[in-house]
């Protein structure tokens, strides 16, 4: 199909994005943090001077120095390299979980709202049951049942996050279903799949995107929590939560062991939350004026 009329539309929307960014410094800060953490994780092989899993019992528990920027752990592994590689696990989990949960959750929610009646009731009560158990407890139970590994922890967190999206998407669907353009589409002969795809899902997207961005931070924290109690990534894989857990024993004398992975988690979670807030303000023109 012949397209492209004026200057590249991609460029103009990028320019607009930048204009909005400049007006919300917190989001800019969040983006900076995320970029920093993601770059560090992505470029880990280049930045890390040591092999993250290389054991060197001769240099155990060394304080931060030029050779070991973040110090070393109890078996002499370089903490700087481990924090960099750990970011790959944690950020990966966060993005995967938020993405899977939002896609699965919003599709279920959308159809639940469109089909209605028995199916709707059934799905929503099921979601209520999931929501009635404290989410960390349920995640722990699921992860323990599946067996401790990072992948299983990921699945467990995804399952527990799904109901939030189902409820969100269903609520959106119920209100969008009554909009004039959905009725208009019906009068022009559109079928249900077309309405869900082009009208409901598209218009339900903004709050789901916001929830998703905010959830990445949550998921990282949850994965770290699971790692901390031993249900997430297993040794020797570098993972922030697990690193904090092993550093706990040395907290009083070797402060650097738990602190650097902790700061990494903190920065990533804050980054994603700031961006989530920023995205929400961007997508809600009424709030932006404040």
């Amino acid at each position, binding site marked *: *199909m*012949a397209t492209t*009329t004026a200057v590249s539309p991609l460029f103009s929307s990028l320019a607009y994005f930048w204009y909005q960014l400049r007006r919300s410094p917190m989001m800019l800060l969040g983006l900076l943090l995320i970029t920093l953490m993601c770059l560090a994780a992505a470029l880990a092989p280049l930045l890390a001077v040591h092999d993250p899993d290389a054991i060197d019992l001769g240099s155990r528990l060394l304080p931060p120095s030029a050779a070991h920027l973040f110090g070393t752990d109890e078996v002499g592994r370089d903490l700087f390299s481990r924090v960099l590689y750990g970011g790959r696990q944690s950020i990966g989990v966060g993005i995967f979980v938020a993405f899977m949960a939002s896609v699965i959750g919003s599709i279920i929610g959308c159809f639940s709202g469109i089909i209605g009646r028995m199916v709707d009731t059934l799905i929503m009560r099921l979601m209520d049951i999931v929501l009635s158990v404290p989410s960390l407890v349920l995640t722990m139970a699921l992860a323990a049942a599946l067996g401790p590994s990072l992948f299983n922890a990921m699945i467990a967190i995804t399952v527990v996050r799904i109901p939030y999206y189902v409820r969100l998407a269903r609520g959106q669907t119920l209100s969008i279903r009554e*909009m*004039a*353009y959905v*009725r*208009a*589409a*019906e*009068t*022009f*002969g*559109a*079928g249900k799949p*077309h309405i869900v795809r*082009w*009208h409901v899902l*598209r*218009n339900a*997207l903004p709050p789901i995107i916001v929830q998703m961005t905010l959830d990445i931070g949550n998921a990282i924290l949850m994965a770290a929590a699971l790692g901390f109690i031993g249900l997430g990534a297993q040794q020797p894989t570098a993972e922030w939560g697990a690193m904090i857990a092993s550093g706990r024993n040395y907290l009083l004398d070797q402060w650097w062991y738990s602190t650097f992975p902790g700061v990494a988690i903190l920065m990533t979670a804050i980054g994603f939350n700031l961006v989530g807030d920023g995205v929400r303000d961007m997508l809600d023109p009424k709030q932006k004026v404040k």
Partner: protein
Amino acid sequence: MMPARQSDTMLNAATTPPLGQAAVPVLDIDNLYLEFPVYKGAIRALNGVSIQVMPGEIVGIVGESGSGKSVTAMMSMRLIPENSYRVRTGSIRKSGRNILQASEKEMRHIRGKDMAMIFQEPMTALNPTMKVGRQITDLIRRHTSLSAGQAREHAIALLRDMHIADPVQIFDAYPFELSGGMRQRIMIALAFSCEPSLLIADEPTTALDVTVQKQVLMLLRERARKTGTAILLITHDMAVVSQFCERVYVMYAGSVVEQGITAQVIDRPAHPYTRGLLGGLPENAEPGAPLQAIAGQVPNLADLPGGCAFRNRCPLQGEPCSQIPPLMPLADQPGHSVACWMTAGEAAHV
């Protein structure tokens, strides 16, 4: 003289001569009784409505809120959720085909292609997240076998027909970038995109300001003339009907109380309700005098009084009004009939 009671007589009388030989009406609603079941009983929304629209004709339905005009329109496209209503008797035929018995799948092929509808709210009737052009081409491609490129050509031609100055630019615009009048034009373009034989316009100009109203109506008529589309215009505005429609049905409490050629009905309204509606128009009022209003309120459709539904608000009520009046043609104006015991005879003498 007591005119014939059968509804057939009035149906035949209603056919307009100038459009001639095409015998099958595009829309033929025959003696339709429709109700919405509610707790202990039912809301009787339509009570024996008969409406015919011939090919290419522009017909108006007038009435106040709750008179059943929108239900009639929605039902003609079967857009009321199944299971929420009950048809007691009667039929709706679209070009001879029984709409009430068509499957939902068949209906989806009729809607948009064979009959289209435009709504009151142009501001919200377009999907805010899709470009206008995409919405038109989606519809065209749903009902025809045109390729994406051809559909685009066709959509741009349609927009140009809507007197939109820069159709290519509008094609790539989002609805929020357009004014209400512009959006209503897009809706009209959508409605005409597959050249339907019937267009139902449910108060298409209510949300627009007066100057735009007129433009939109002119545009509707122009397009309808060009494509041979019949229009069923639902409105509460007698002034719009008088400028726009060839024939008019006046509805009250779920029944047609008067019908005829617009000029006849406006010049010599026979039903006291129609007289009330026309009397309420500002242009018919004497300067300085308060506007006339019809006393009382629309009866509760769940609990209709026996006899004529207008009885409790009618200035002329008399003995026979405890019976439901059928539509009776006026003796000297055969195309013009009225459902009123008191005026059906009287009008003939004038």
